[in-house]
Structures are given as C-alpha cells and as structure tokens.
C-alpha cells in the first residue's frame, strides 16, 4: 500500500471513529483498540473477543428468534493435504479475516468474499514431537502485524497486508521438547506467550516480547526455584526453592503454560494457567509442586507473580491447570466483586477474587470426579486417596478408575461468559480412564515403569456436554449432551444465543437461557475451533473453522467409536441472515 492510500485511509478512519462501530486505523489496531475489543463490534482483534476472553458479543441482530434462518455467506478452504485439527479462532479487521491453520499456517481471507489474500506456511523441521496433533489456536493482531506461534517454538510477525515476515524469533528449543500452539496475548505493546511441551520434563514460563522487534522484555518461569528476568537482569526467583519440590526436580518440573493467557486492564493483571508437574508419577515428587496446575496472576509490566491459586496441588492425574481464567464482575452476598472463573481440567469450576486470588467457590461441572470430593473452604481439594494412581512398580497392580480422564473435564476449548445471562457456558466432557501400572514398558530403548490407561465414557448417551453454569450458585442451569467429545470453543451473544461446534461437523446455536437447540449447520468436518461474530456493512456475521483433529483422535477405545466416521477437513465458514 502506498503512502497516499495510507493517508486516505487515515482520513476514513477518523470519519469512522466518529460513526462508531468499526475500528479501522491506517496504522492498524493499537493497545487501546485491543483493550476495547469486547465493545467494538465491527472487528475481532483478540483471542477471546476481548482481553478478558469472555467471548461475549453485544450484537443482537442475529438472535434466538431468527437464528433458525442463518445461512452460509461463504466458505474458504485451507487447501493442501495438511488437513488436521483446526483449533483456530479467526481475527477480523479492515475487511480481512485472519486464521491460522494446522501445521503452523496463516491465511488472510477477504471478509466479504472469502477470497484468499495471502497465505504463510511456516517451514517446519521434521524432528518436532507435538504431543497432541499439529494444531494452532489463532493469531494476534497489532499495528501492521499478524503474530502467531509455530510448532517449532518460534514467534512470527507478518505484515498484515502482505503476509511477509517482519520478524521471526525462536522462543524455545524444539529439540529440547518445546513447542507453541496458543494464540499470543498482546498487552501494552508486548507479545505475551507461554510455552508447551509438558510431556518432556521442561519448565513452563511466561514471556513478554517487544511487539515491534520480538526482543525479550521479561521472562517468568512457573516453577519455584527458577530465576525470572526483566530486561536482561535477574528479577527474583519464582516462589521459594524446595518449598514444595524435593531435590532438584524443580529444574524439570513441568508447568507448561501452553494455552496462553487473559488480561484484565482494570486490575492490570495477566492470568496464565500452568500445566501438570513432571515427572508424571506423583509419588516421586512429594509436596504441592508449585506452581504447577495453577492459575498465576502476573504484573504485565515486570512479570512478577502477584498471586497464585493451585487448582490441583500435587497432581497425579495429568490435570493441567492451563484453562483460561475469565475476569467478570458479580454481586456476591450483596457485595459487588471483581471475580474471575476457570473451568479446570480436574472437573471443578473455580470462582476466585481476581484482585488477590482468594478462593470463593469450586463446583463440579462434570458428572463424576473420582479424585476428590469437592473443595474445603480454603480452596484445598478433599482428596480421595484410594483413587490416586499408584507408584509404578514391577507388578501390574490394581486398576483404578479415574474421572475426569487425563484429557480433562474441559480441555483447551474456551468457555464463554454472557454479561446478559450472567452464566458461563462450559464445553465439557464426561469421561474417565482405567489406569494401571504397566511393568512391561520401555522408553528410549530402555526398560521403564509406565502406566497403561483406557479412556471410557462415563454415561451411555454422551461424552460431550455444553453446560450453563451459574457462577454465583455453582448450579448447572442447563446442559446440551453430545455423543462425541466436545473440543471446540464457545461464543455467546446479546441475541440470547450460545454457539459451539461439534466433532460431528455441526456448528450449533442454543438459547442462552434455556439451552434449547435453535439451529445447526453441517460444515463437512468436525468443528474444534472457536466461533466469533462481528458486524460488517450493517449485518451481523458468524464465523468458525471446521477441520477435525486435536488430541481426541489420538486415543482409541470406546471413545473412538463416537467419531470413527468423521472426515478430515480445513475450512473457514462464514454465516449471516439472508437479506
């Protein structure tokens, strides 16, 4: 784009700014635009449709009374043979829809026609060991850049008009087992990312980089004993060395921050969840193993941990605590409070005071939790000790049934919070696992003491369940049951609607108050992405990625029967009401 056009656009932007909805600046979105994303209906600038990631839109042109008429506007294929899980959430800005695809690809489509503007394919080394398919969960936008993370643990900034690389930084060593799949979070001119690689004895960290150069500003390891940095200088260790870890295990303690984070401008805190501790066998690492399976609140300016809340102390079930922590406000016992909520892999829905991490409540959102019988008033789980998987031995030992399974009551797929209904909509799964010691096991050619497991449904009629949770009472208000496991994100709107996708290939719309299914559309492959909505030329649009994959198809057993007929895919679908 030439200078003349840029300045013309600048004028247009000024005019539009007066008119309201769409933010289009010549220089692209600013920090203020990102902070305001939840309110600006003409674009989708952040993962979660706002820094708090409530995935709530005030738009109501499409609503419970007319959603049944929703039809496709266009579809755009990601093409090629690389059709794996499409877990991306689209970004919409300035007439363009940006999506990431499996195998670390980025696509820019015209938001009016679906025509491809450009495509970027990261060149990936073949030595990567992604634990759970070759997914990517979305891009970030800032100024003239589209920024995304790659499977070989790089962060790439592309020119949003051309798809050409502006900077490309290695953020971790893929050869040491690190990877990256989450959508980056942008706060105050910094790209803030986590890391993945939970199965390889790594240490989780949150890192902030200059959005314009990719240079590291601060780094905060998630495991106690490890040193943080700020602008190249030591900035204090995380926690207190050996307070909750024996020996030197904190050096390889896990706690990967593989799902990214949310940001609350009001408290100036960013919230990152942390993964399970390593090694997997909890009997080797006595103690709480801080800060694994936790939510951390960090100061975005320095990377210092302001508070933490551990949802699964001394995890022994692979209950990553990475799930998104969504800030919201509510009145509890007559008192207006700044809260946050998280639906954890361990099957409990947590409400915390987001200013200090104080425990408010934890309520079950899945049918069965065998590992604990609720939480006490201090926020500690009431463990059921008999149901902790045993220490590996040379004997097969007894089989323990454990629910949720290690894939979690809720996995990566983000929930939504409606400011209208005051409900959270949780994409959950009712499944458990049989787990036993596997004495005949080998790792890297050497004898090993492993665990064997089989994932099983908990109920006859479903695995997936979209549940409406009242955060004030902890009660499930309604639920929609789905035969196959749910693996896609949720969107809710002021049109009294909740949207989510199913592995069976449908994008579905539900009445936000009652859960009545109002509309569905078959996209041709499983939907494991997160839907969005925005307004364009006076009409409301809904978009979602279709393309079956992710971690679920990697596991067999009874669960696999629910998706054996689902085909691969890779498409963006866009919907609107007919004129």
């Amino acid at each position, binding site marked *: 784009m030439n200078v003349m056009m840029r300045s013309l656009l600048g004028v247009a932007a000024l005019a539009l700014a007066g008119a309201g909805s769409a933010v289009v600046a010549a220089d692209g979105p600013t920090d203020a635009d990102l902070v305001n994303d939840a309110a600006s209906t003409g674009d989708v600038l952040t993962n979660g449709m706002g820094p708090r990631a409530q995935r709530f839109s005030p738009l109501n042109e499409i609503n419970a009374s007319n959603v049944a008429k929703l039809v496709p506007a266009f579809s755009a294929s990601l093409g090629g043979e690389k059709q794996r899980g499409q877990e991306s959430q689209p970004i919409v800005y300035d007439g363009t829809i940006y999506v990431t695809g499996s195998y670390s690809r980025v696509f820019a489509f015209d938001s009016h026609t679906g025509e491809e503007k450009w495509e970027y394919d990261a060149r990936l080394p073949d030595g990567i060991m992604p634990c759970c398919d070759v997914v990517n969960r979305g891009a970030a936008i800032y100024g003239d850049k589209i920024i995304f993370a790659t499977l070989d643990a790089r962060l790439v900034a592309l020119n949003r008009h051309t798809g050409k690389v502006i900077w490309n930084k290695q953020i971790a060593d893929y050869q040491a087992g690190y990877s990256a799949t989450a959508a980056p979070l942008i706060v105050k001119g910094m790209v803030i990312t986590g890391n993945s690689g939970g199965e390889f004895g790594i240490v989780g960290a949150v890192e902030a980089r200059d959005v314009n150069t990719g240079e590291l500003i601060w780094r905060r390891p998630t495991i106690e004993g490890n040193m943080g940095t700020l602008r190249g200088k030591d900035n204090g260790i995380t926690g207190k060395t050996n307070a909750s870890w024996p020996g030197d295990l904190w050096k390889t303690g896990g706690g990967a921050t593989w799902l990214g984070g949310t940001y609350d401008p009001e408290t100036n805190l960013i919230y990152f969840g942390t993964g399970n501790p390593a090694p997997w066998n909890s009997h080797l690492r006595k103690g709480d193993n801080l800060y694994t399976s936790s939510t951390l609140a960090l100061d975005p300016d320095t990377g210092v941990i302001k508070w933490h809340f551990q949802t699964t102390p001394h995890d022994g079930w692979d209950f990553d605590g990475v799930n998104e922590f969504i800030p919201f406000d509510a009145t509890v016992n007559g008192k207006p409070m700044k809260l946050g909520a998280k639906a954890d892999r361990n099957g409990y829905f947590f409400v915390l005071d987001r200013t200090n991490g104080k425990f408010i409540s934890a309520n079950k959102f899945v049918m069965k939790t065998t590992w604990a019988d609720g939480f006490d008033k201090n926020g500690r789980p009431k463990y059921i000790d008999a149901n902790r998987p045993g220490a590996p031995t040379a004997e097969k030992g007894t089989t323990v049934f454990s629910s949720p399974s290690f894939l979690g009551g809720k996995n990566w797929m983000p929930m939504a919070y409606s400011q209208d209904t005051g409900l959270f909509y949780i994409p959950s799964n009712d499944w458990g696992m049989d787990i036993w010691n596997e004495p005949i096991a080998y790792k890297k*050619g050497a004898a*090993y003491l492993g665990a064997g497991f089989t994932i099983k449904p908990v109920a006859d009629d479903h695995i997936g369940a979209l549940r409406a949770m009242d955060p004030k009472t902890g009660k499930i208000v309604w639920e929609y049951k789905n035969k196959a496991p749910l693996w896609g994100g949720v969107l809710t709107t002021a049109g009294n609607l909740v949207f989510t996708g199913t592995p069976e290939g449908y994008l579905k719309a539900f009445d936000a108050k009652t859960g009545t299914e109002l509309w569905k559309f078959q996209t041709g492959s499983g939907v494991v992405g997160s839907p969005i909505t925005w307004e364009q030329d006076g009409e409301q649009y809904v978009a979602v990625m279709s393309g079956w994959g992710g971690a679920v198809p990697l596991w067999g057993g009874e669960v696999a029967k629910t998706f054996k007929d689902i085909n691969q895919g890779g498409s963006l679908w866009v919907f609107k009401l007919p004129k």
Partner: protein
Amino acid sequence: MLTRRGLLSGLGAASAAALFAARIGAAPLVKVKAIGTLRVALYKDNRPWSWAEGGRILGIDAEIARAIAHKLGVSIDLAEISADESVDDDLRNAVWKGGLLGFQPADIMLHIPFDRTFASRNDQVAIIAPYYRENFQFACRRGEIDCDGSPAAWRGRKLAAELDSIPDFYLIGALGGSLSKDVVHYPTGWDAVSAMVQGSADGVLATRAQIDAGVKGQTLIDRRRMPLPAFTSAGWDIGMAVKENSRTLGDAVEEMVAAMAASGELKSIFAQQGVEWVNAKAAG
C-alpha cells in the same frame, strides 16, 4: 534363533496366517536393493549407541547399521528420531507410520527391546535380531562411597540418574524415599555417568553400556557387584524392528547379525565404545 521362533509361534494362529499373507505380498528386501539405500532409524542423543558429532552419527548402533548396509551392498541413510513417551510410540513414528511432520518411515530401527509382551502389543512391526543384553548398574567414585554397601549409607551424597527412568524411580523411592533429596537428575544416562566421572556426583545408576562407555579409561571408578536391594529390573534384550510386511528384509538382517555375533564383529564394534558385548538371552 530358536527362542525367537518360539516367540513368534506364541503370537497365535491368526496372526501367523496374517504374517504369511503379508510376506507373499511384499518384497522389501528386493525394494531396498533396487533403491540402493537402507534407511535406518536410530535414537537421537543416545550415547554410546547413537549420537551426532561433527555432522556424523557415531555409536554402536550407527556402526551396526553401517555394517548391515555394507553387507546388503547398499548405501546407508541414518535417520535420527527423538524418543517419544514410549518405544511403542517410537515404532509408530519411525517404522510403521511415520511422523506427523513428514518423518519418512525407516526400513529398520535399531535399539528396540526384544520382549514377547512388548512385541505382541506392537503387531505392526516384527521385532528381530536380538543383539545385546542390557541391564542397569550402579557405579561410584572410589573412596567417595562404598559401591557395595547399603544404599542407606549413600545418604547425603550426590547420586546421578536420568530423569524419569527406572534408576530415578529406584533412587527416589528406595528406603522409603530417604535418598530422594540426594538424587541429581540429568537428561540422559550418559550425562549422569559423565557427571560422576567429572566429580559432580558420587554415584550413578545407569545402563551398563552407558557406564562402560562413560568410564572408559578411568581407573578410580568402582562397580557394584551385588544386586541393589529390591531392584526389580533383571535386564532386557535389545533387537531391531522392521515393518510387519518387511520380513524378507528382517530375515536377511537377522542372518547377518547372527554371523556378526559368531565372527566377533559385534564384539569389536562394542569394544570401540568401551562396551563389553553380552549377547542377548534370546539369541541363545
């Protein structure tokens, strides 16, 4: 090779029939010879078996692979594979399916445990040619700790082990966990042995091959001669894997390996790394 035949017959009539059908359908040995290259998967960073140094892959497994290719009259394509969570996963990634990111399956993979239970649950591959008997050993710096003493006496000394391995489980769990604070973790058994040799640990529990190779030329290292109390791993055989329908290749390689064992060629390849060759139990 009698033991191996017995192992195969134990797999049952149905799978034996399936193997037979697959053998008629495939001629991978012919294919390997026609292409002129044998693609061999080896573990990355698995010293003294296979590791990269100065652009070349070195180690016992690399040399065995080169010898096999040489005897087949083909060139060699050594492909390093990062170990996944289990060897079952490695067989999928390296032998019968390939990697998600384009890793092409190899014709054969070395360093695969030769074990009946393990083989029966990995029926996409044939596990062949057992060539070594491995086990775990304890070694220590002479004068620092008593290698043959009770592990309780090692409290307060640094004990090296590969992270998340049987040695790690043993040392951390032994004696009710009383040594758990003394365990120093390393990414590989080789690194653990090296740490002891360099003096940053007093003892190490690792595989015998890692210790043999790691302490080569060192005189002040002792080995524990008696078994560790309540140590459960009695050792295991190491063989190779070919895709289930590549048995013509597997048979040819098996004959070569048996000849290499008989002629002393295997022994000398092991000796180059300082490792004493012990034939697999299954090789009888």
